[in-house]
């Protein structure tokens, strides 16, 4: 659906935020050109399309750029009205989905990302792990309340919050391996563990979700070892 060349996505296979846009496009069966950015450099097109933040993802539709992953996902939902609805139809349900997506970006991801900087510092690692686990606990509870027994936050089908969280799954698994800890697991987050299984099997996701090992290798090649402790 949609002519090739009409829709472009500037991004990278490692980015959890780009992943959101890819899932949304796949969910709506939109043909698009994926422009993979090279690690460590920013293309001219990226700099031109997102001069304010110079960050991926950027969706380009009819030559007009749309930036910020959640803004892109909503744009996709509102522009391609065929196919499954990404945001729920009820305003209250929409507000709940948006609330948790904002939580992911403002609270959860910073903790998930920054634990790398304290690798090797026992106390600091414990603090961050606690934060991450608490966040996942909240999300596990939210899943029960919101899904009402259905496979996804969006119900029978992937929705906004599923898409928002989907990009972090592989990175959470990276942290599980690096820090030898269970985060998304039936013993810690039983409902999310099932959700991960459902997500990973979904046609819009299964061919693009990276493995934790591939991400770990990418980090090794492109980011090098974690920084030494500050003291």
């Amino acid at each position: 659906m949609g002519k090739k060349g009409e829709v472009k996505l500037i991004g990278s296979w490692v980015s959890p935020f780009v992943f959101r846009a890819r899932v949304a496009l796949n969910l709506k069966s939109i043909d698009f050109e994926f422009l993979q950015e090279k690690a460590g450099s920013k293309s001219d097109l990226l700099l031109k399309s997102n001069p304010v933040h110079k960050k991926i993802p950027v969706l380009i539709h009819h030559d007009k750029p749309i930036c910020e992953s959640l803004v892109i996902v909503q744009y996709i939902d509102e522009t391609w009205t065929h196919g499954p609805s990404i945001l729920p139809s009820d305003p209250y349900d929409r507000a709940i989905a948006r609330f948790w997506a904002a939580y992911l970006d403002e609270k959860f991801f910073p903790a998930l990302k920054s634990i790398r900087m304290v690798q090797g510092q026992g106390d600091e690692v414990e603090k961050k792990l606690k934060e991450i686990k608490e966040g996942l606990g909240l999300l596990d509870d939210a899943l029960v309340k919101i899904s009402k027994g259905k496979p996804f936050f969006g119900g029978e089908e992937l929705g906004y919050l599923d898409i928002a969280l989907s990009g972090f799954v592989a990175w959470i698994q990276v942290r599980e391996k690096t820090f030898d800890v269970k985060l998304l697991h039936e013993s810690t987050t039983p409902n999310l563990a099932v959700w991960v299984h459902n997500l990973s099997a979904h046609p819009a996701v299964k061919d693009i979700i990276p493995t934790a090992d591939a991400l770990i290798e990418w980090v090794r090649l492109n980011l090098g070892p974690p920084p030494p402790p500050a003291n």
Partner: protein
Amino acid sequence: MGKGKGDVKLLGAWPSPYAVRVNIALNLKSVDYEFQTENLATGSKSELLIKSNPVHKKIPVLLHGGKPICESLIIVQYIDEVWSDGPSILPSDPYDRAVARFWAAYVDDKFYTAVKGIVVADGEEAKAAAVKVLKDGLVLLEEAFLKSSAGEGKPFFGGDEIGYLDIALGSLLGWLRVTEKSFNVKLFEEATTPRLVSWVDSFCKHPAVKDELPETDKLFEYAQKVVYPRIKAFAAAAAK
């Protein structure tokens, strides 16, 4: 007389620009609501706030038929979608909506940090650098304004009527004015942001807005007594 759709209650506080966004949106839609003030100065939180926003324990919270909605921009979108017969807050075109959302996210991402940066800046140079960050941001918004509505001679980011980005940015005007007064700087200037200068005037006079923006003097005192010391203490603790 307002249109009800069940009872509407806002947990807010006059100094909070985030709560002010909700006041403005509700006014724009002529919604009758009950306003419950949280005392931000003491920092003690009401039971209702803690119960309604257990994750963040922050205002604003909108309670509609007893159900809580949190996060100011999420609340504004909720209001727009529920009271769909009033003026539209978000534009109807998906691309325009994306642009409005982008800049509102930018305001939330950058402006508060920039204002805090000015408060904690040590020495004249650092202060000037921090002020520049804020002013550069306003220039970006001036350009965005010119590209869209102002380029067509419209008074607001939303066009003829205030919209999502007007509310997102305009709600900060009290604090931006206090910043100007506290640090003896001009943020909106004819030379760099001429259209925003007129916009500020139009926005503040708007009937949905004029009673909601805090008085500069009152907010200035509040900033000196409560907010700036808190920001500085927090920064000092974080630096240790």
